[in-house]
């Protein structure tokens, strides 16, 4: 029982990263119809930025947690203005290719400067140690990640449902033409929303720095799993993406714990779930049916 609770908790923590990344992808996709391949690269930049700030400027974790998402959001907005927005009227595949190219460039720039080895990042002292839950102990930092990620998701949910900006974003996610027909200037929100999604990726990166090895390739494999997550949840649905993020984290953790005799299955369980979802509900668990094609 204790083992099961511990695995579940670990699953929720890794699910928190998927959820933050999937949330950013879904918001960006909703507003721009762009699937941002570079999302993983921005996650990596968040973690690497925190590492560089700490080792070269002595900036602590808490400051990095604010600086990196904001800085990356600005970088994202600049990239949106410079490149992505030129292609948004074409097939989304072109922006997928463009952001793929950006991923290779960002990765190699970091590799060129810092090499491919992994760097450790010390857990901030306020969050070291562990929390006693009665049945089992759990590292404080992981508890913090889970709480923080849930708070961010709830905050975004609140902003989307209760604020005017959020309603515009939701409306143009679900029915872009209709929203325009109501005289709402959708274009005004495109760049800030892109920046916001990138900021979320950066935030996830900073949170990951003390827990996972910081290296230039840390985002690359992760983003493909996140793609599977959003296919499972339904990219058009913001709630679905977050729920699928946490769900996949759980399934993966349980798979690793109870299917360890079959490493091929436990390593690929995300994709197996995706295959089942495609068979059962091709539009994703929370997605709407696309126009048949």
């Amino acid at each position, binding site marked *: 029982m204790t083992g099961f609770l511990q695995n579940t908790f670990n699953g929720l923590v890794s699910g928190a990263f998927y959820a933050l990344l999937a949330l950013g992808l879904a918001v960006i996709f909703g507003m721009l119809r762009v699937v941002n391949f570079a999302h993983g690269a921005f996650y990596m930049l968040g973690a690497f930025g925190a590492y560089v700030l700490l080792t070269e400027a002595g900036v602590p974790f808490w400051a990095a947690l604010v600086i990196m998402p904001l800085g990356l959001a600005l970088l994202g907005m600049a990239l949106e203005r410079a490149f992505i927005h030129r292609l948004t009227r074409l097939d989304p595949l072109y922006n*997928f290719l463009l952001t793929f*190219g950006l991923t*290779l460039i960002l990765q190699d*720039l970091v590799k060129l400067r810092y090499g491919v080895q992994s760097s450790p990042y010390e857990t901030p002292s306020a969050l070291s140690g562990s929390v006693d839950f009665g049945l089992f102990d759990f590292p404080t930092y992981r508890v913090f990640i889970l709480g923080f990620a849930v708070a961010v998701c709830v905050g975004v949910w609140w902003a989307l449902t209760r604020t005017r900006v959020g309603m515009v974003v939701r409306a143009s996610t679900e029915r872009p033409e209709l929203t325009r027909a109501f005289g709402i200037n959708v274009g005004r929100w495109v760049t800030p929303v892109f920046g916001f999604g990138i900021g979320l990726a950066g935030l996830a990166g900073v949170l990951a720095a003390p827990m996972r090895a910081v290296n230039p390739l840390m985002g690359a494999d992760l983003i493909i799993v996140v793609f599977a997550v959003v296919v499972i949840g339904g990219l058009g649905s913001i709630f679905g993406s977050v729920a699928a993020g946490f769900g996949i984290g759980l399934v993966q953790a349980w798979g690793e714990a109870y299917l360890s005799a079959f490493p091929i299955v436990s390593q690929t369980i995300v994709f197996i779930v995706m295959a089942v979802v495609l068979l059962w509900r091709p539009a994703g668990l929370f997605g709407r049916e696309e126009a048949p094609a």
Partner: protein
Amino acid sequence: MTSTVDTKADASRPAVPSGLVTVARAPGWIRYALLAVALLVALWLPNGLYPAVAVDILCWALFAVAVDLLLGFTGLMSFGHAAFWGASAYVTGLVAIHAGLPFPAAVLAGALAAAVLAVPIGYLAVKRTGIYFAMVTLAFAQMVYYVANEWRSVTQGENGLQGVPRELFGLDLSDDYYFYYAILPIVLLGLAGAWRIVHSPFGRVLVGIRDNPARARALGYPVHRYKLTVLVLSGFIAGLGGGLFAVGHRFVSLEVLHWTTSGKAVIVVVLGGIGTLWGGVLGAAIVVRLEDWLSFSGFEAIGLVTGGIFVLVVLLFRRGIWGTASALALRWWASRRR
């Protein structure tokens, strides 16, 4: 060969002015002259380049044409074609090592394995279209990558398959120069097969599905089945390339299954020209040659250059080399006749 395919620019379509149409309208003697030049270049290639590079170009040409069959002629962007290329490389390597068959038989086994792998992947992937198709194929290719990585008893994991033999009835093919001429017929057969598919009634239906899936469905074509069929054929052709690549390098590493390999195949096609078939061959030659030159000159960040090509081509050069050249040539031809 009269074509009635509607080429009116639809901004939301991935496929650019279809080469199918431009080729059909170019006068016959030009097409034969181009074909003759291409064959002469193919025969001369290993004399002008490092033979090993020339071999890589041939393999990547097959890979690119396979991707273009989907991207250019069916409107499906597979971002997971490394699954077929890589699976065939592994199967070819294993068959060549353990069964001691002549290498064309091993390559055929690899390509067939890739085609078989394309059935379940394709069955699931064709349920989605557009950007989702790209994400789903990418995810399944990553799954194949993890399987190869975990299944160490067969694939040797990160060490890769070493010592894939180049057996052909006792002939000495250890020199890349002779190996090039040994694989050239296989590659030409693969390319001719792709050409045949595009210019068959089946290929016409594919273009119809690309341009207007709803109409194709209304006309009674089973759209999903057509897409699945072309995916299997494309997987086979990509598998031919991957198998030859394995024999060419005498070594198979996990890199053949990596997502960067899938991405590189797509950019090769976009650089050459989507929907032009031969553009992919041109793109393969340029990218392979460039990467060889970069790694030879000790430049470490190859991704910086390939990524840069990606960004520039997508922003400024979406028709690709072949698409741009044939559009210019056609305009010149039209103005001369007036």
